[in-house]
């Protein structure tokens, strides 16, 4: 076992982690621990753009952007945070341009901007061009640009290091972060990283769904690590289902495809979104479009022999436009479906895409131990965190923005805290939990297999807590997850070695997914209303009287060692905007 000491440790090297690293490295001795090589992170899969009211092509301002974000989130957004997001968006985009990001340009040489779902002029009057973009590979460009600047600054990376535990020490009755425990994939060695500040930027947890746009590696490791140590998780019932994933595969096809004029059609060729959103049609918010697609499928108007998908039709758009604006997603259709988008419609279905919930933080990125108490030295940013700027439904192009604004804020805050704080003492054997976990899996003679349990988890999540939910379906999921958690104790792996043991890591990742799936289902069961991405058929309306509040889920361990989830609630911060009915 090796012990390292750094001022600031960042967990994860996607957009939020590297944006934080660029700030933290300037101000403190910083290490970035990442389970993937930095450029492998799923930020690179984001396509459509990054919102900022630059007003380069038409009138726009941050206040309109704030309103759209609050409304898009079905008023569960903390409005002070949304205001910061929209205000700092402008400098965030300019920062990236100065770092070298190759944005598309206007004829005048300014950063070009395009329309995106839910972004409007003057509080919903008409769509506005707010998304700054680089073809349909904006996330790729952001990830590359941030990595380039990390190289420029000499950021210290520990590649293929898996953070498996958060170390918390109680000092004078206050829980403080003391560092993390990491597992080195290449050698199987365990490392303790003592740090004055720890920033989680480890991304989402979409792999508990079967049809998802998420990478295989998005297994909620950061959320699970802090949750296990008594930190709550906020609003985990809110998960975004992106309307256009490639049928059965879930690979993302950007909303920009509909922004460029693409149309959704059912088996009769009907443009069905006209029925559900007469004004915005195919560009209504993501939760609305995904529900509409599944309504068509349920009512027998889905396409294909099994009627289980609909079409994204781009055939009326000029091939030159597709080549220039949507080169990557048209190539996905050719590669994975053998379909030529110039002439044939693309089969799509909603795909599990983004966790609105996560580790609760304030606007400085400081992690909260309850509704108000900060955990000194602990920070989170990006999809792993819940600030909350996305509320019940995130707007497209606000996630690439979130990672830049709050990645930067967390990086600065963590490094500044580290510059005036002392190292927190480690507990007696900080590695004990991880050592025990690894040894149990390595030596297990159980009969359960990781892949079987994961498949069953993904199937129950898709069937029961996806776009439509009822008390009945959620309870089915809760029971199934409990059964799977029980069976997981009997899981065995085949690779017993120390070197690059991805068999072992997949087993640990599955444990994280099971924990988080349970939090999600339990949180969803208690929210007896419909809001944004959480749609309860048995409670189809938003209920501001009883549920205008954030869910805070805590892990409780009873005296006899039994684990349970306790739910509490946190008020929503409202500043300028009173809740209104959400229409597009």
């Amino acid at each position, binding site marked *: 076992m090796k012990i390292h000491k750094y001022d600031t440790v960042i967990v994860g090297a996607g957009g939020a982690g590297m944006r934080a690293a660029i700030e933290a490295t300037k101000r403190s001795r910083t290490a970035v621990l990442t389970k993937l090589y930095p*450029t492998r992170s799923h930020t690179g*899969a984001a396509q459509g753009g990054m919102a900022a009211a630059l007003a380069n092509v038409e009138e726009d301002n941050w206040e309109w952007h704030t309103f759209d974000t609050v409304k898009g989130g079905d008023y569960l957004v903390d409005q002070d945070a949304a205001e910061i997001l929209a205000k700092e968006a402008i400098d965030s985009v300019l920062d990236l341009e100065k770092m070298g990001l190759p944005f598309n340009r206007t004829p005048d040489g300014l950063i070009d901007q395009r329309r995106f779902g839910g972004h409007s002029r003057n509080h919903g009057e008409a769509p506005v061009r707010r998304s700054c973009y680089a073809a349909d590979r904006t996330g790729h460009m952001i990830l590359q640009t941030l990595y*380039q*600047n990390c190289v420029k600054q000499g950021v210290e990376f520990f590649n293929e290091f898996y953070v498996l535990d958060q170390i918390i020490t109680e000092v004078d009755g206050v829980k403080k972060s003391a560092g993390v425990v990491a597992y080195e994939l290449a050698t199987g060695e365990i490392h303790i990283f003592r740090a004055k500040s720890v920033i989680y930027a480890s991304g989402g947890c979409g792999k508990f769904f079967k049809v998802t746009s998420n990478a295989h590696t998005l297994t909620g490791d950061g959320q699970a690590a802090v949750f296990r140590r008594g930190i709550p998780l906020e609003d985990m019932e809110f998960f975004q289902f992106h309307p256009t994933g490639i049928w059965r595969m879930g690979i993302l096809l950007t909303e920009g495809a509909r922004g460029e004029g693409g149309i959704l059609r059912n088996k009769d060729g009907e443009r069905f979104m006209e029925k559900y959103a007469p004004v915005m049609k195919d560009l209504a918010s993501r939760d609305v479009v995904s529900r509409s697609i599944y309504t068509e499928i349920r009512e027998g108007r889905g396409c294909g022999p099994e009627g289980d998908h609909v079409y994204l039709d781009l055939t009326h758009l000029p091939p030159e436009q597709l080549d220039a604006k949507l080169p990557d997603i048209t190539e996905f259709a050719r*590669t994975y479906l053998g379909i030529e988008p110039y002439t044939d419609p693309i089969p799509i279905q909603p795909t599990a895409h983004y966790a609105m919930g996560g580790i609760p933080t304030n606007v400085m990125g400081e992690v909260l131990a309850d509704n108000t108490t900060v955990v000194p030295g602990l920070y989170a940013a990006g999809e792993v965190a819940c600030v909350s700027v996305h509320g019940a439904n995130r707007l497209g192009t606000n996630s690439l923005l979130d990672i830049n604004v709050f990645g930067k804020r967390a990086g600065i805050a963590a490094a500044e805290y580290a510059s005036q704080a002392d190292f927190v003492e480690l507990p007696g054997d900080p590695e004990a939990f991880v050592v025990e976990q690894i040894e149990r899996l390595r030596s297990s003679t159980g009969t359960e*297999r990781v892949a079987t349990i994961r498949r069953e988890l993904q199937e129950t999540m898709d069937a029961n807590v996806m776009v439509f939910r009822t008390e009945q379906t959620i309870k089915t999921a809760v029971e199934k997850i409990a059964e799977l958690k029980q069976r997981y104790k009997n899981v065995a792996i085949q690779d017993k070695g120390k*070197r690059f043991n991805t068999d072992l890591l997949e087993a640990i990742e599955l444990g994280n997914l099971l924990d988080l799936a349970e939090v999600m289902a339990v949180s969803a069961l208690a929210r007896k209303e419909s809001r944004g991405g959480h749609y309860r058929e048995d409670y189809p309306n938003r209920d501001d009287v009883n549920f205008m509040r954030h869910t805070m889920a805590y892990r409780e361990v009873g005296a006899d060692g039994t684990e349970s989830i306790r739910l509490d609630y946190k008020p929503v911060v409202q500043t300028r905007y009173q809740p209104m009915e959400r229409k597009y």
Partner: protein
Amino acid sequence: MATPVLEKTEPAGSASAASPYITVTFRIRRFNPEVSAEATWQDFQIEIDPKERVLDGLHKIKWDLDGSLTFRRSCAHGICGSDAMRINGKNRLACKTLIKDINPEKPITIEPIKGLTVLKDLVVDMEPFFQAYRDVMPFLITKDTNEPTRERLQSPEDRERFDDTTKCILCAACTTSCPVFWNDGQYFGPAAIVNAHRFIFDSRDDAAEQRLEILNDKDGVWRCRTTFNCTDACPRGIEVTKAIAEVKRALITRRL
């Protein structure tokens, strides 16, 4: 060694329906120094829909037959660059190669990419590759003493000039398909040159001279023998050989 066989996992009752599944043999180069100093070939038979990816086949093996099979992967749709490997003798991304496109009638051979040290099965040491990338100063360098308050201006034409090389995902398919790189790991390799090109031809950048000097080195761009392997291998369709030629031309003329 007996070939492990994966049973069909079709739902009961669908036996009479036309099955999309076919039987395919994956012949995989295995190496684990914890077990043996020698690399060996191992065959696996799996049932797979030909429309699935080679990566799906590798997952079937890892998840249902042999958990010790080791490879890198993440996004599974050709964006993250984790799973470059040598499939039937050609560098490709496993997640971007469909079974039906590589003649499933014969065994599909899968090996690690060449020219980098194999650490376990299909996992290679990527550090020399990333070192070459870092050596070309892959970041914007400007002479501005005062940062502009707004964005730097760039015309759509100037932006288009280096568009092709911005697509690089650092998967190493090009560099590890290059015979010069196989013979001499000191060569920067196509990917590093592609990433130098991305900045040399960016109108906002002021350090082209420095990068050209780096690539003028004995291990630099002149080692390229224009075999086009890199262009064939690039899963992003980047015209790698053309980019290298443009860097060579810039070195000769020193006019960008």
